[in-house]
């Protein structure tokens, strides 16, 4: 494999074929201009990269628990400042601090820890790879799971069409901390992700990336299709690409023609039930939600 790509995260990890996050991790870390220390919340990325006595990490790496990647990196980052002050680390040694977490570890159980670290203003980048559920434990719903999706804790049935709640808007929550840079990206748009990672890593203080990460296993699509699934998410405006830099919103991708969200939904088994006649209103609801959210973001970008 390409040596540059595997500089920090090597080949030989055990993530599923067709998983989105290896490309996210490599693309983000590929933009580093300094040394790095990585923190990782419990989740797929962690379990598939650190099975003792092996480790896929070629940079210093710490996995503490599920909900505390941001608090953990806070401690590492302050230790760096403390030891620099004492002359135990050279003042010229620049280190960037990067935390990775899935949506469960970020939107849900790790939200408080993330909020605390953002508020305190540590010099770190937090990357949330969002695969819309607790995939490491076998596909349970999180607050990032889309409306109507089948998961093991929102199963479909006589009385159920899947998840009844809409997704939590994490970008809005993170933006409320008024950090210098945050962006929504997608593993299917690596050039865009690369640009955003560069900006995020160059930010002095906290920065945040929310990256769409298709899950072949639990969204139920063939392993060869993750890029296509990702592309359709953005082309249908289900997952708009945008960034907020010093408070300024900017849309990074505007589809030439609007593709109906059903084109994205029909690629995945988790939405299969929505195409039954009786669930038509739910499909219409999803299209409505997508239109409203895209209009809201586009509006902010125009201001």
């Amino acid at each position: 494999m390409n040596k540059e790509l595997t500089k920090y995260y090597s080949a030989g990890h055990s993530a599923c074929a067709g998983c989105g996050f290896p490309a996210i991790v490599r693309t983000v870390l590929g933009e580093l201009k300094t040394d790095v220390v990585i923190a990782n919340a419990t989740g797929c990325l962690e379990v598939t990269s650190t099975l003792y006595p092996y480790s896929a990490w070629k940079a210093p790496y710490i996995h503490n628990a599920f909900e505390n990647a941001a608090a953990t990196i806070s401690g590492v980052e302050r230790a760096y400042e403390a030891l620099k002050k004492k002359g135990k680390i050279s003042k010229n040694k620049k280190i960037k601090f990067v935390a990775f977490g899935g949506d469960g570890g970020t939107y849900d159980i790790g939200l408080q820890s993330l909020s605390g670290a953002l508020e305190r203003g540590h010099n770190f980048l937090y990357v949330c790879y969002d695969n819309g559920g607790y995939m490491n434990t076998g596909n349970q719903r999180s607050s990032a799971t889309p409306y109507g999706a089948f998961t093991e804790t929102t199963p479909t049935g006589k009385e159920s069409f899947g998840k009844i709640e809409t997704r939590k808007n994490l970008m809005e929550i993170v933006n409320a901390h008024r950090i210098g840079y945050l962006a929504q990206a997608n593993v299917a748009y690596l050039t865009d992700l690369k640009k955003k990672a560069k900006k995020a890593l160059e930010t002095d203080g906290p920065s945040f990336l929310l990256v769409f990460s298709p899950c072949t296993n639990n969204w139920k699509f063939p392993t060869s299709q993750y890029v296509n699934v990702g592309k359709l998410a953005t082309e249908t405006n289900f997952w708009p690409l945008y960034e907020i830099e010093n408070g300024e919103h900017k849309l990074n991708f505007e589809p030439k023609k609007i593709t109906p969200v059903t084109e994205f939904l029909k690629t995945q088994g988790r939405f299969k039930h929505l195409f039954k006649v009786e669930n038509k209103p739910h499909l219409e609801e999803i299209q409505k939600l997508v239109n409203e959210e895209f209009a809201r973001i586009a509006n902010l970008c125009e201001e």
Partner: protein
Amino acid sequence: MNKKNKKLALTGGAAAAEALKQIEIDVMPIYPITPQTTIIETYAGFEANGEVETEIIKVESEHSAMSAAIGASSAGARTATATSSQGLALMHEVLYIASGFRLPIMMLVSARALASPINIHGDHSDVMGCRDSGWIQLFCENAQEVYDKTIIGMKLAEKVKLPIMVIMDGFNTSHSVENLEILETKVVQEFVGEYKAISPLLDTDNPVTYGAVALQNSYFEFRIDQEEAMKNAEEEYEKIAVEYEKISGRKYSIFEEYRLEDAEKIMVLTGSAAGTAKVIVDKLREAGEKVGILKINLFRPFPHKKIAESLKNAKEIIVLDRAQSIGTYPPFYSEIINSLYGNGRDAKFCVSTGREIKSYVYGLGGRDIFQKQIEDVFAGKIEGGYIK
């Protein structure tokens, strides 16, 4: 006494902060909870006056305080924090990660009752709730001990690579002002030494992975290693305490034997109540009664063998716990029974006899214990297992 030593009037909390200042803590994540706040407020005052270079992280919960402490310690920084009660309970999950990583984190605990009902006053329920978490636990009787044992504890933790709780009684010790002797900072620093972490995260030229997955083929061995390290802490504590005696003149054995030489009735307890009990022992001794006290200092690791030896001639043993273990015997009592009746792994020191070994629970939720009650306990006048 060294003329350069200072006599100060401090609370137990402030005494702990003074020791941390002299040790030179690199990183200190803090979060307020009564009755621990005297520690972090005093320390924040040092920061405000430029007396310390510590990076204080004012986190948003105790869970994050311990999580950040784990990050800082893994990074290679000498790290401390402090907590009580619900805060310690909230940290519970990550306590095991700190000890699993073998990080020498110093945590001052101002021991307090657990909810519900909520109660902010002292007892040992909180620290007993994490007695199996792989942390060294060292109890203190008064503010002087808090100061001294923070210094001893830091050196011990870094020597055996295990995290340590230095425990004082909430309010009784944390908020009571006492006169104590403070060593010269230079002497403290020479004693504790410079902290050199093994494989810190910040050594980016030699990357390491912390927090790996270990399955059926390796997890067990990690746990055995922790047990070995903890056993080793007993011997190391003794060596360090001897060294500390040389610089301070104060002796802190693994447990304190107070007038035990020919004692027939021995009371086992710890914390601030030990001070009260000593007064009664002195009084009873004057009246010719052969009574004494075995005061627990080091609770984890528990020195079973040495305690069995110390108690072997006692005709009656009275164990006072400031915590329950609901559904079974209280924590100290169980340990004393284990000591006297052998532990399965080293039955050689089994010294069981038909002696009476009594269990009492006292002081829950900050309930005072009085000299008269201790006297009554020695006289066998209190029934029912509770000193209310």
